């Protein structure tokens, strides 16, 4: 069996990719997908730890995180729709009325 480090490093790479997506992209839907990528990386870490500790707790956490992600998606996409339904261009930088 491979050392846990392999999976963890992979998970870290996926997590970093996700964060970069949030920082770099201007399309809120893609930013949101990047957050899903981050959650996914966390899930991979949980499953890895679970496997190497021979404990099922991590599986439950993944189950819970997936549920949370589903709820977030439902509400998040609702917010995105309610804002961008009326706009032609979907750019997060346009949301800049409030500052300072």
């Amino acid at each position: 069996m491979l050392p846990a480090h392999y999976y963890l490093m992979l998970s870290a790479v996926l997590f970093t990719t996700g964060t970069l997506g949030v920082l770099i992209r201007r399309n809120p839907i893609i930013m949101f997908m990047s957050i899903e990528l981050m959650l996914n990386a966390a899930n991979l870490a949980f499953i890895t730890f679970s496997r190497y500790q021979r404990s099922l707790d991590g599986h439950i956490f993944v189950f819970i995180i997936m549920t949370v992600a589903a709820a977030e998606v439902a509400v998040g996409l609702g917010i995105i729709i309610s804002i961008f339904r009326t706009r032609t261009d979907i750019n997060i930088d346009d949301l800049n009325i409030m500052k300072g």
Partner: protein
Amino acid sequence: MFTYAWLVPGLPLLGTIINGIFGRFLPRKVVGTLASALVGGSFLVSVAVFIQLLGLPEEERHVTSALYTWISAGNFFAEAGILIDPLSVFMMLVVSGVGFFIHVYSTGYMGHDEGYSRYFTYLNLFAASMLILVMANNFLLLFVGWELVGICSYLLISFWYSRPSAVAAGKKAFITTRVGDLGFTLGVVLIFVAFGTLAYDQVFAAAGEVATGVITAITVLLFIGAIGKSAQIPLYVWLPDAMEGPTPVSALIHAATMVTAGVYLVARASPLYVHAPGVLLIVAFVGAVTALFAATIALVNNDIKRVLAYSTISQIGLMFLGVGVGAFAAGLFHLLTHAFFKALLFLGAGSVMHALAGETDIRNMGGLRGKMQVTYWTFLVAGLAIAGIAPLSGFFSKDEILAAALTAPGGHWLLYALGLAASLLTAFYIFRLFFKAFHGEPRMSAERLERAHESPPSMTVPLVVLAIGAAVAGFVGVPGFLAPEAGWTHAVAHFLEPGLAREPLVEAELPPAIGVMLMLIALAVGIAGIAAAWHFYVRRPGTAARLAQRAPAVYNTLLNKYWVDEAYNALFVRPGKALAAFFWRGIDAAVVDGFVNGVARAVAGLSLLVRRTETGYLRNYALAIFAGAVVLVGYLISTR
């Protein structure tokens, strides 16, 4: 009676609540009477406490009564408790007594003001706060009173909100004194750090066991607080502006509350100060220099209230001189006499202004003597008292301070000289004021002169009562060498000393020869000042103007208050303004000027700079979060 001592701040507080909530619906008479009666009640309770305290043997005159445990958490403990000892009872009597007369006077003075009930709400709260301040048995409760006094002064100074200058002055007072409060807060915290408690008894009992450096730091920090509240150099700038408030408020601030808080603080903490002789020397010098400095400004100012304001700064400086050389009782004695004659001066000035429809410029007065007899004579009493003419009250207290400045172990001839010079100038400027206002040709319009009249009894009665006080209050502190056999010499000092630090600074009784000589010098100086004023303003009214022509530089320097405001402007305000203007969209018109202004602008500029980090871009915010995460994790894994 001691168990009812809480009524002393409690009664005015009750007045605040009643007038604050129902005042608008009550008739004016009820509001004013209620407010005055409650403060009068607290004066009566103070007297009763005083009498009971006198009945106790000297060493038992130290009673604490805890109302309830206020804060108790872990090793941090504070009571809502009252300390009754000579010092606090002394202050209670001064505050509630003088406060009572000012309340009564206000019922007349403010009679036509639309904010009548609001005024008395604040005034009662002011008295209550000051009473809390002086009656607290620990530094935390003292701090509460300290802050409340600051708020009340702010509310009252900016009472006439419709004048922008009043609003600015209130803000200036609040913010300047908060600079001092910073020192005070740090001092209180340091006390807790060093002693593990904030209760006076425990702190003072352990004062000798704490390292000198710590005591020095604590006393310096407390003194910074005192400087702010008591308007000493360099934080005095707010007090002259505070004249924007109603005149009785000025009287209250100057005579009984607020500015005396700093003197009280140093006296209260005297067991700490005696362990820091170097700091006491600083206190003395700050006091002496302020006394002289403010007196010189008062020489040439033409606004009756401002002259009195600088006079207060100067007199408080003398008190600090007294406590600074270790003569705590002498400083407090002067506080007492000053309360009488300064309240009297202010109320007299208010009476004059009342007669002249609010005129404050002494160049537009004159010849009022015949118009207002009561005001004239009472003002004269006050003037003689502050000038130090025997046997009025100021003579004894001032003499005691000056004598201590020269002869006490902590004294210095330079301090004495400064104090003496200040006395000379004091006598001069107060009689300049007096002569210009009441003597000579009337310089106001004929119509005004026609209308000028004596004030109503609610104003003149307090004047008379205070005049009697200003005249005779000095006899509670007659020095021992004048009447060696009598048991009543140094009454104030003997009463107060159990509450103050005794060793090692209490001066021995002076040899009569030296004592009398010092007295005569002080008296001569006072008479010289009055004579000079008489010469300049009554005998040859043009002299001062000629002098101004001959030495314009000196005269203008004084007239412009040494250009302190201007120097502050150049040093702090301009750079601050430049910075602020660089970012700021519109400049806030109501911001205070001077030193405070500079600091405020600098902070505001910094604020605008930091504000720019809030770009409004969501992605920037995410970047900040992420950067924070990277730095945080990086730091944490590096601690391994």
